[in-house]
């Protein structure tokens, strides 16, 4: 597998990276772990003339706790997320989801920023950050801006990033007390990308659901929030029948497609079942 010719840059600072993107506005791509980009380049589906490697930039990788949030550097690997004690304690859905990405080799190299920027329609982390209500801090020519997760994914492999912007950090707000989270996934048996992946973040106040956020991946052009499910949950008492009724809304507004993994009615059933599993687990964890 031989990619087309490209120039390889290793900027030492994030500003250098941004300036390289500005110099090559149409034909530069950022690379971190390379697990999304390199396969496409090897098949020559992607032929960027310039590769800007972010791995030499210090400070772009790592997990930090601040008041009210956890900050994850863009080049933090899936493996670091999977094994992070901080995240296991504060945002356990992230290690849970990261554990289900690919295999150990992929997790050792792949990064959260790379996964989000690539915006594969079946990637796991997009659904999770949607459910968490995360914010992405990005740096471009005009300085820093923050993009809310629900505004980030805009289409098939496309995001709200402009060509000269770099994700620097993902900000995960603290989970309120009484919150339970869960990510469930039916993996494609070959790629282990999600045929269906559902993230649920549910906060229970006494006996009612105070807040519910659901992220869905694998079934459309990009990960989306399951608003219909969220609405069905909000303010309700989380018993089994209610959760099942809410999960039945998982496919509302989605255009499911038949593919090698099954027909539309199967996909709908799969999505509904995995949504129910995610909701049930999140509720159970919220209660404990």
């Amino acid at each position, binding site marked *: *597998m*031989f990619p*087309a*010719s490209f120039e390889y840059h290793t900027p030492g600072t994030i500003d250098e990276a941004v300036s390289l993107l500005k110099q090559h506005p149409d034909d530069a791509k950022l690379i971190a772990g390379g697990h999304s980009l390199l*396969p496409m380049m*090897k*098949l*020559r589906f992607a032929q960027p003339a310039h590769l800007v490697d972010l791995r030499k930039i210090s400070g772009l990788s790592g997990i930090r706790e601040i008041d009210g949030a956890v900050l994850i550097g863009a080049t933090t690997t899936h493996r670091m997320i999977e094994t992070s004690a901080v995240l296991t304690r504060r945002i356990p859905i992230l290690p849970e989801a990261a554990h289900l990405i690919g*295999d150990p080799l992929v997790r050792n190299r792949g990064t959260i920023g790379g996964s989000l920027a690539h915006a594969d329609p079946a990637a796991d982390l997009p659904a999770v950050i949607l459910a968490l209500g995360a914010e992405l801090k990005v740096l471009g020519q005009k300085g820093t801006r923050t993009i809310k997760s629900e505004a980030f994914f805009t289409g098939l492999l496309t995001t709200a990033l402009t060509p000269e912007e770099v994700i620097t950090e993902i900000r995960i707000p603290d989970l309120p007390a009484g919150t339970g989270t869960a990510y469930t996934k*039916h993996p*494609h*048996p*070959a*790629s282990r*990308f999600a045929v269906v992946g559902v993230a649920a973040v549910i906060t229970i106040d006494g006996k009612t659901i105070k807040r519910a956020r659901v992220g869905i991946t694998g079934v459309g052009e990009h990960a989306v929030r399951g608003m219909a499910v969220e609405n069905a949950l909000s303010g309700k008492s989380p018993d089994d029948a209610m959760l099942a009724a809410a999960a039945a809304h998982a496919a509302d507004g989605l255009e499911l497609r038949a593919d*090698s*993994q*099954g*027909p539309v*009615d*199967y996909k709908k*059933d*799969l999505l509904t*079942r995995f949504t129910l599993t995610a909701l049930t687990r999140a509720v159970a964890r919220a209660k404990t």
Partner: protein
Amino acid sequence: MATTTTPERLFGASIKRREDPRLITGKGNFTDDLKLAGQTFASFVRSPHAHAKIKGIDIRKAAAMPGVVAIYTGKDLTTAGVKSLPCGWLLPDLKLVPHLPLATDAVRHVGDQVAVVIAETAYQAKDAAEAVKVTYEVMPAVTNGEQALKPGAPQLHAEAPGNKSFHFTIGDKAATDAAFASAANVVKQRLINQRLIANAMEPRASVAKYDAGTGDYTLWVTSQNPHVHRLLMAAFVLGIPEHKLRVISQDVGGGFGSKIFVYPEECVVTWAAKAVNRPVKWTAERRESFLTDAQGRDHISDAEMAFDANGKIIGLRVHTVANLGAYLSTFAPLIPTFLYATLLSGCYTIPAIWCEVDGVYSNTTPVDAYRGAGRPEATYLLERMVDLGARALNTDPAELRRKNFIPANAFPYQTPVAFQYDSGNYGPALDKALQMVNYKQLRAEQERLRKEGKYIGIGLATYIEACGPAPSQVAGALGAQAGLWESAHVRVHPTGKVTVFTGSHSHGQGHETTFAQLAADELGLPYEDVEIVHGDTGQVPFGMGSYGSRSLAVGGSAIHSGIQKIKEKGRKIAAHLLEAAEEDIVAEGGKFFVKGSPSRSKAFAEIALMAYLAHNLPKGLEPGLEATSFYDPTNFVFPFGTHIAVVEVDKASGIVTLTKYVAVDDVGNVVNPMIVDGMVHGGIAQGVAQALWEGASYDNTGQPLAASMMDYTLPKADMLPSYDTARTVTPSPVNPMGVKGAGETGTIASTAAVANAVMDALAPFGVTHIDLPLTPATIWKALQGSPKGR
């Protein structure tokens, strides 16, 4: 368990593979590792269409790109006299079609090659190949074998009207019709054996060198049979005198059949090495492996099985459409005929069998032998039909099988489909497997769990394997363009060390270990004193290579036979030195001694030394100590066994979990049990994968939908349970060591066992059959279609 101390007998010892330290520490010598001075790189321009006419090829832009040494099209090759790739098995009335190494008139599958770029680097070659502009007139494509036979289907070759390659029949039609007419019960089922993609770990590769001084060519190629490559390439394709072409195939990273065949690429690379007068290297990209390595299976069969009132099978009627792909791969016609239809009697006495096979061309990658090659297809069909019979007759599937087994006292057993089984004793293998899964208790457990809404399934497959295809004379009468014997050359060096040159080829099988074990055992020498050489036409006598689980039964027997010649000569020398009669000399334990007085002896090394010193040899005896043997077996050997799979099917999701797998195989005497276990394990993984995950598919324009490891599901370790393997031993009477073959048994039995297990799990829902692979979606759909399953 591997043996660490010196075992009592080398034959039968689980010695660790001597090739492994080399292979797992990166010291192997694979084709792509070769770096020759002045080496250039080839990249092929391939069709993006499944079916198109070539209207023009414009190489001007590509030819001007950096590093480009030469660009050749099909026209350049045909002008230079390069001919079509040959077919090695000519059935009567076979419609042969041309298969030029580079297409000239049309392309017939995605990946078909139309030009080659030779450049200074692999990257430059690939860049220029992308710049070659081919003008295509796209034509409708057909990828399904049955569709290809329909009137109005796109036509691939003028030489094969209606896309028909051959029509093959075997058995007795009238007797079969009569059996069905008298049957108490008949089961019918359409069974699709889906197309599989081989995926050896090492992609195909070739490096060719031409010596302008001597006119000699050397080709290093990923081949399971270098002599066959040399013969077919030299005599049929390139017109190079056979003695001026040396083919070397050293370490090869798996083949599973796909590296038996002569492919366009090695022919082009060899021709180009002379044309550019520099070595040329080509290594397939993984995507090229998916598009161009010969693929496996792809049958659509309609089967009917007739039972009498006592549950005895009295007839089997099968019609199979075998999709051969766009061209005839080297042994394509053999696989769905003499390696498939002849297996349809399985382990059973079936008095009447009639099978018809239509071989068909389609706009897909050529199909040929893939691990099991015809036998998994036959076993899947037969074992599904027996299970459907058991369901229809309301009989336990194990008991129905036992009832129909060929009795142990009936061997050699002549089937109605050509084969005469050499030996067999099927009951004990079944009993052992049933006992290993605790069958009765498991059935009770199954009943209990069903009441709890849990659905486990128990699937049996008994199988017969036919390996070491033979004898040559019969094969010739059936259309083989090759003999089916094997060669060995045993060279004893003056110090008594031994080099064995084998015509067999190892590409994962562990011959360097197994053959050294059997040779050392037979000579009574330490294992370390024997070295095995294979895979080089410049060193090894003409040999047939490895396929069809033949290496030990045929290649090993050739070594055994060569060693007898060495011992015979050694006895002559020993008798002379010990002043005894030749017939009184015993060769045993690394010594030659006089019968009854073991102290009157000469060590093997002393005899070897004398053979080369020649100071004191019997009158008229030539010096030296080496022997060549060509062993032509009298028959196939027929391993058999019973495999049992236990699965759990989640009713809601359709997800299948394989929870237990038991394999009881009878491969005759075993040289290295650990290596046989390894082969069985790998084979089971491949067969389970066909049942649950693998399968090539195409869209309606003929584009393959699974052409990468992201789409095509190869089994991974965490998808499989630990297997329980065991053996019964029924030595083959065909060869001197009583050995059979073990390379394909796992693949042959496991697909049927797993499919039967899943259908058994789904029995409460009235589901009787689902085509492979049994994905969650297909199972979910079947359950949706059942009133009890929703």
